[in-house]
């Protein structure tokens, strides 16, 4: 399988490609490393019963790169995102985001139910210090960017799950972050909606040159979206494999190439799960 590069150490995309800002695949080319984890470990619990969530994890995500993290339960994927977002601190090791602005999206849209979609987006702008007179126009533009131009006046509960997640995306974009951390953002959506949102995310990332670290349980989703897929072991979480996905954009989740990578990821995950038989 030439499209895969197994067991490679964490390293940014090959330097030879970084000269061109936009590749033939339509996605902006990867550049300097933005997110770097060096020997990161995280221990939870008491000193008597410590739980090692992450064990000596090193990885780096280059500017403009889309990296998917995949693993079974207890691999510390969500822990890793919290650490990168700065909501938690590692027990040992270093995390650097190169001074870039980082934002986080969850499986739940986590919109404020008392505000309309537009106000939700405006609040993120306000928290960033955008002057009042600019907020309304900016929010409208951001909602338009996720194709929700006409729904600014709707409250979250009046929207469908997929629409809420797009408002959450507009809110994340309002934070003007360079790095987008996504924790199973489409996990609660039906396959049809998810499929359309993959296209949306692809387009938005290409337009805005976002660097993305994307956690998922879904092997095909990982292969569909990622430039690279990183497999993590469970309890503790370690990097066990990296798969480079060299498939041109636009991609389709039901294409044979994606299915092939998906099958490989599934096999590796099953091996990993089987190793936990007691």
């Amino acid at each position, binding site marked *: 399988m030439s499209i895969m590069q197994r067991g490679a150490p964490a390293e940014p995309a090959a330097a030879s490609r970084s000269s061109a800002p936009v590749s033939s695949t339509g996605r902006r080319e990867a550049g300097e490393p933005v997110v770097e984890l060096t020997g990161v470990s995280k221990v939870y619990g008491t000193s008597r019963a410590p739980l090692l969530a992450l064990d000596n994890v090193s990885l780096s995500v280059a500017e403009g790169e889309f990296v998917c993290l995949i693993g079974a339960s207890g691999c510390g994927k969500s822990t890793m995102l919290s650490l990168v977002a700065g909501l938690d601190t590692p027990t040992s090791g270093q995390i650097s985001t190169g001074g870039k602005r980082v934002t986080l999206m969850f499986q739940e849209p986590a919109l404020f139910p008392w505000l309309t979609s537009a106000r939700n987006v405006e609040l993120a702008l306000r928290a960033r210090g955008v002057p009042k007179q600019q907020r309304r126009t900016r929010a409208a533009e951001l909602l338009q960017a996720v194709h929700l131009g006409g729904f600014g006046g709707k409250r979250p509960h*009046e929207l469908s799950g997929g629409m809420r997640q797009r408002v959450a995306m507009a809110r994340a974009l309002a934070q003007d972050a360079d790095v987008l951390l996504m924790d199973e953002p489409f996990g609660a959506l039906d396959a049809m909606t998810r499929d359309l949102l993959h296209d*949306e995310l692809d387009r938005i990332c290409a337009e805005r040159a976002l660097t993305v670290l994307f956690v998922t349980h879904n092997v095909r989703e990982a292969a569909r979206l990622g430039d690279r897929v990183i497999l993590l072991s469970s309890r503790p979480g370690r990097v066990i494999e990296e798969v480079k996905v060299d498939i041109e954009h636009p991609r389709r989740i039901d294409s044979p190439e994606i299915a092939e990578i998906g099958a490989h990821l599934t096999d590796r995950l099953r091996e990993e799960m089987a190793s936990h038989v007691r």
Partner: protein
Amino acid sequence: MSADTQVNSLVGLDNLELAPQPGREFLRGTSVKVLGGLWPKVLAIVIVLGLWELVYVANVKPHDIFPGPATVLPNLWTQANHSLLWQAIGTTLRRAVTGFALALVIGSIVGALVSRIKVLRAAVGSLITGLQTMPSIAWFPFAIIFFGLNTSAILFVIVLGAAPSIANGLIAGVDYTPPVLLRAGKTMGLRGLALYRHLILPASLPTFVAGLKQGWAFAWRSLMAGELLVIIAGTSSIGVLLSNDQNQADMPSAMAIMIVILVLGIGVDALFGTVDRTIRRRRGLADPAVGR
């Protein structure tokens, strides 16, 4: 698939998902809904009046000790045509509003402090709940000796009755701010006072309003007890009217006043209920078709 088709299918799916779902709401107009909500209440009143009349005609007690609706309702009508009842209602409601407003201010301040400061919570958290369980009438001897027989004694007991519920409502609201919203707020960069203003306070509003509603019930009970115990010379209040009727053994008038108390209590409670429902509906917390 071209980019246009992708966008079109996305927007088309949005329209499909937001299209009105066929259901019973479709046929019901506003007037039908109001009438639909009204008839069970009317029926309940008719049943109560019927039972009352039944007990009356059964001659359980002499008719001057237990009058029937045919005596009490005309009595109520007569009293309603005199200014005395309206003056009394005015005095009582003024006290209720003053006492409740004081309780609101004090309860909110205490609630805000306790929810923010850990030491304070450990110290007085359970004390507030304890105060809530204490029957407010037990405070009157203290209040009458401390303030004398005047409005301050009544207001004091109203505040003690209502403020703990209001404080607890706020504390519970702050405590139960959904963690996922807190994470989202922090990710957005909301910190300190801004976090409170834009996230924690709005998130706790429904629980706070529930606390207000409960606080009102306690305030109203405390007020009625207070007006029966603290009779201030020269003022008429609902409690004074009721007390006078007791002294003159005027059962029809006493029962008429009791109806007034019931109606006022239900009226204010319905007001809080409307506010509560409006907030919930705006947040998608309750189906607007139920709970009327």
